[in-house]
C-alpha cells in the first residue's frame, strides 16, 4: 500500500512538474498523460475502479489527443529555451505557487476530519456507483446534475465547432 502510494505520488507529481518545466510542448502533453495515469492509480487505491476507467478513457485517451491536435495546429518551429517559454514574472509565480502548496497542505493536515476516517466508506460496487450517478439510489440531485452536464457537453461541443470553424464568405 505504501509502496504503491509512493510510486503513484512520485509519478503524478513528477510528471506534473514535467508539464510545467518541459521546453517542448509535445513533451508537456505526454507528461500530462503520465500524470493522469498516476491519478487513475490513486482512484483504484481509493476503491473507485470505474472512475479510474473513466479517467483513463477520457483524460489519457481523449483529452490528450485533443490537446495534441491543438499543438499540431498551433505550433510554429521555434527556439525553446527557458527564456522564451516562461513569463517575465516567474519569481512571483513561484512564490505564489509555493505559498499555495504550503497553505493547502497545512490546512488539510491540521484539519480534524470528523468521524472515523477509514478507507472503504464509499460504494464498493460499480452498480451502486452508477445508481448514485443517476440519482436512483443516492441523493436525487444527481439525476438533475447528470442531465445538466449532458446538455452542457452538447452545447460546448457545438460552440467549439462554431468558434473554430473556418469562416467563408457566404457562411458555408
Amino acid at each position: 500500500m505504501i509502496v504503491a502510494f509512493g510510486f503513484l505520488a512520485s509519478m503524478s507529481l513528477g510528471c506534473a512538474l514535467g508539464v510545467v518545466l518541459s521546453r517542448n510542448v509535445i513533451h508537456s502533453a505526454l507528461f500530462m498523460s503520465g500524470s493522469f495515469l498516476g491519478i487513475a492509480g490513486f482512484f483504484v487505491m481509493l476503491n473507485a475502479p470505474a472512475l479510474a476507467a473513466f479517467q483513463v478513457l477520457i483524460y489519457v485517451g481523449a483529452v490528450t489527443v485533443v490537446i495534441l491536435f491543438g499543438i499540431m495546429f498551433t505550433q510554429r518551429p521555434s527556439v525553446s529555451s527557458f527564456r522564451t517559454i516562461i513569463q517575465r514574472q516567474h519569481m512571483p509565480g513561484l512564490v505564489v505557487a509555493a505559498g499555495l502548496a504550503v497553505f493547502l497542505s497545512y490546512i488539510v493536515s491540521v484539519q480534524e476530519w470528523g468521524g472515523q476516517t477509514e478507507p472503504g466508506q464509499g460504494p464498493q460496487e460499480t452498480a451502486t456507483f452508477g445508481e448514485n450517478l443517476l440519482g436512483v439510489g443516492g441523493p436525487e440531485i444527481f439525476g438533475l446534475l447528470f442531465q445538466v452536464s449532458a446538455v452542457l457537453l452538447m452545447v460546448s461541443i457545438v460552440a467549439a465547432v462554431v468558434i473554430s470553424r473556418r469562416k467563408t464568405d457566404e457562411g458555408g
Partner: protein
Amino acid sequence: MNQALPIEGYLVVGALMFAIGAWGALIRRNAVVVFMCIELMINGVVLTLVAFGDYLPQAGGVGASYAVLVIAIAAAEVAVGLAIVLAVFRSRRTVNVDEANLMKW
C-alpha cells in the same frame, strides 16, 4: 506494510498537484500549456473529492459521482478552450498569452 494510509496523504498529493498546476498556469507563455496546467489543477481537486468520498462517512459515498461530473465539464472546457486558441491563432498567428492582448484596456 499493508495498513491503511491516512487520508492526509491523498489530500496533500492533491494539494501539491493543484499548486503545481497553478504555478504552470501562472508562468507559462504558451496557451496550450496553460490549458494542460488547468487540467492538472482539476485533477488535484478530483483526487481530493474521491479521497473524501472514500474516507469520510459523512460524504455518503458520492465523491466519485461528483468526480464524473467534474471530468465531463473539464472535457467540455478543453474543447471550447482549444477552439478559442485555434481562433486566436488563426487571426493573430500566435498562441503566446502575452501577445493576445486585444481586449486588454
